């Protein structure tokens, strides 16, 4: 075969190009640390890399979600454990105060203690994480539990039996809180002709004969208070009593729930949301719960404590004893919520561990596809360099040969 100067020249050029571009590619692998530098380097591997990359980004995000969730759950857990402790103390106090050995002075003193518990629990019920309330459902921007303590309000009747007993109406215009205790003197239906007594201190009693059938003012009882002794056809025993609480404008009588019923959730995986916030009503009880009609819902913890306060104030040891079971119920509820929260924390931690394993696995797979093995890459570069040097050397020798030199 004739080898002409042109083909010699062209073959040298194309060989040098081939070897040097292989060398540049080998160098790029080392300097970028990646086997895949362009889409076309490994289109199939690249799909896996893209997939793994998006999974990894998703895992990072899920870890952030779990961290948010955990901070909520842990804050909830500690707030509720604290509530549980306070309730236990309240229960102990309740046990102590139900003892017949104690007098009205001791019980009055305990009112302050119970009030303290109430306020502590209220503060715990309004626990915030990052400025957001955790026990208000998804209404995280407003304090879920609010003391309703503004201005005069409707007098509140606390009684036993069915709801068809007397009611208090109108506005109390008392300037300080006062509890009127009414008791029947005679057995039988309360209504026209029955005789009731009322007292504010349990010592001095004033007699009153209801006209019956409508709201009436009771002589001696403060302005604004109307009591309806409507005869509902039910009989009472002699000595049965009810209390009417008139509120000092500065003293609270109720705690109202401002949140909603849908708990706050975080996402812990594909279509998997975990509730980390709580509907506060499920923990602390329903607004306006009526103890006399337990089927209506869920006893309200704040109401229980307020009732306890009144009972202590009235020196009503028997009621205090009854409140004990209500406190026990609350303790049960809160313990259940605490253990549920603990279980959720555990679930999140398990998920976190799984995510970490996945992350490790994905990172390794991704690295296996797109990252270069430096040792191998350096060896590769070395061999390409050697080939380049060799072809430079041989080319320069071959190029110089010409017959002209020998003529």
């Amino acid at each position, binding site marked *: 075969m004739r080898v002409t100067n042109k083909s010699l020249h062209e073959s040298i050029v194309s060989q040098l190009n081939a070897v040097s571009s292989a060398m540049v590619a080998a160098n790029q692998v080392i300097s970028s640390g990646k086997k895949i530098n362009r889409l076309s380097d490994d289109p199939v591997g690249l799909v896996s890399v893209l997939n793994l990359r*998006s999974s990894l980004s998703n895992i990072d995000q899920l870890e952030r979600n779990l961290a948010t969730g955990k901070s909520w759950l842990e804050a909830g857990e500690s707030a509720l454990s604290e509530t549980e402790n306070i309730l236990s103390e309240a229960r102990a106090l309740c046990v102590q105060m139900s003892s017949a050995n104690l007098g009205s002075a001791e019980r009055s003193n305990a009112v302050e203690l119970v009030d303290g518990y109430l306020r502590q629990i209220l503060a715990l019920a309004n626990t915030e994480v990052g400025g957001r309330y955790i026990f208000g459902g998804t209404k995280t921007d407003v304090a879920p539990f609010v003391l309703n303590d503004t201005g005069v309000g409707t007098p509140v009747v606390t009684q036993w039996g069915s709801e068809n007993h007397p009611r208090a109406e109108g506005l109390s215009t008392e300037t300080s809180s006062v509890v009127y205790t009414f008791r029947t003197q005679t057995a039988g239906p309360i209504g026209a002709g029955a005789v009731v007594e009322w007292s504010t201190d349990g010592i001095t009693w004033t007699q009153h004969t209801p006209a019956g059938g409508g709201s009436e003012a009771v002589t001696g009882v403060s302005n604004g208070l109307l009591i309806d002794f409507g005869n509902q056809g039910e009989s009472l025993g002699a000595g049965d009593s009810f209390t009417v609480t008139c509120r000092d404008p500065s003293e609270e009588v109720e705690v109202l729930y401002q949140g909603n019923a849908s708990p706050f*959730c975080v996402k812990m995986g594909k279509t998997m949301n975990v509730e980390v916030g709580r509907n506060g009503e499920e923990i602390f009880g329903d607004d306006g719960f009526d103890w006399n009609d337990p089927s209506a819902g869920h006893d309200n913890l704040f109401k229980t404590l307020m009732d306890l306060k009144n009972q202590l104030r009235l020196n009503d040891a028997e009621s205090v004893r009854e409140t004990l079971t209500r406190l026990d119920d609350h303790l049960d509820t809160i313990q259940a919520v605490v253990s549920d929260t603990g279980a959720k924390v555990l679930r999140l931690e398990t998920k976190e561990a799984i995510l970490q394993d996945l992350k490790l696995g994905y990172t390794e797979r991704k690295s296996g596809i797109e990252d270069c093995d430096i040792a191998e890459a350096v060896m590769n570069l070395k061999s390409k360099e050697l080939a380049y040097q060799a072809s430079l050397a041989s080319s320069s020798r071959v190029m110089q040969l010409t017959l002209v030199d020998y003529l």
Partner: protein
Amino acid sequence: MSGLVSVLSIAKDALAVQQYGMDVTGHNVANVSTEEYSRQRPVLEAKQPAPYQGLLFGTGVKIDQITRNVDRFVEARLMDGKMELASSSEKEIQMGVLEGLFNETSDQNLAAQFSDFWNAWHDLSNNPSGLAERDVLLERGSLLAQGFEDLATEMTQITREINLSLQAGVDRINELTSQLAALNGEIVQQEALGNANDLRDQRTKILNQLSEYMDIKSFEHDDGGITVMTKSGFVLADKVHSYRLTVEDNEVKWEGSSGTWVPITDTLRQGKFGAWLDMRDVILPKVQADLDELAKSTIWEVNKIHTQGVGLTLYPPGQTLTSSYSTSTRLGDLSFGERVDFSGTFKLWIGDGNGANLQEVTIDLDFAGGAIDENSTLAELRDSINAQIAGQRPALAGAVSVSVSASGNRIEISADASHTFGFSQDSSNLLAALGINTFFTGSNATGMDVNPTLRSDPGLIAAGRIDASTGEVAAGDGANALAMADLQYLGVSTKRWSFERGAAPTSVDITETPLESYLQALVSSIGLQSQSVQRAKEYNELIVNQLTEARDSISAVSLDEEMTEMIKYQHAYSAAAKLISTADEMLQALIEAK
């Protein structure tokens, strides 16, 4: 006639012939680097013998012709090889650019923007009332939209550049074909005298240049002229005539002898034109269509979820929402009009001036007093909704009203100065199709953007949902954001397009594919295409190198060979000179013998 005089005459011819030989060798040496030069050889021939005294005496040497060493078969194969190489190397360059656009190997790319976008929804679901999270989400949404738009713009730019190249290429082709025609004339003229070697080389060079642009074939006539035509038979140059090409409306057209312009775009498969047209009509449109499809699905799926939700507050008093999609005729002509379920309903909530005390109005598209279907007009839709508001909430008639925009092609929903409004439970997809309470605007990669209403008040990003039982809007409600975050895992129905030259595009329905998987498949298909183009180019390069070697071994100049030739002619010249001096001596001897 023989004798010493004849010897002198033979020697004289020999001297001249060796000189001519030296001439040709010199020409070869001088053209050692000339492209497409084929080495030339003098063909020496013994002259006619002359009879003398019953014998035939040779009368010396003459040059019969000067030939060029060419193998037509190899030349033709080489030209074909070069056509394909030009095509694949041009395509490799273009694919390199396209690959660079989808630079998915780095961390700044569409896939990463998708991940960031979903993560921003996750973060918003973790803190639905957070303004920072809302700002980040807007930013991520804008970046995603921008990512789509940048890619679309860049691809349009590539198309534009290809069209410019086509224009320039056609000019060059016309220049080459007219040169060919001119050369044909000269060659025919010269070959009446002898071989027009150098002109033929020049013509081969031009043919080769032409073949880099498009697929051509040629054949030679007896008189030395050639006819060149495209592979599909459109004559570009025929002897001294050349036929022009032009680019009109981005179509390549051929000017027939009758002056009519015939479109030949789809017949060009090789050379740079083949590569450009493949890029412009097959590869780019596919990527663009798929990207548009992805953008469209992303916009639709995100909007569909967004329209179910509500921001931190309702749309404030005095707010007017204008639909982002328009139609001046029927509802079915909206960008997403075909996706509306006209048997569905949605709820419009009207609140007081503070966004509280929400009252619901269930808008039923099948409303008895004004049912809406794909053939309804915007005015009919307006009347139906207004009638349903007035029917269900007479006290709120006019508090929130629907109207048709002044331009006549958009719907406007506006609240008066003392009412607010929001939406929920849209089972009809009408809101998403109209572009009301949506996250994105636009319907493909180019027009995609974040809804400007949200940009001006990030609080209106619908992270939550109106509680259907209580009609409340809770600031910490991330239900809609959670649903949105789930979208990244959910399969959606899309299409994948394929384009072919000279045929209508076809599409395959893809179901249950998450949006990101769709993108990954698209990116991977670009990578695969680029890889196969690179391999084709390497293969063609190999073929062309081999053929070039074969051609060069036949036609190219070897200096060593020419040096040998030179020595040969030199020695022959010396010998002829010696012949003269010897004949001279013999004549001297004859003269002196007198």
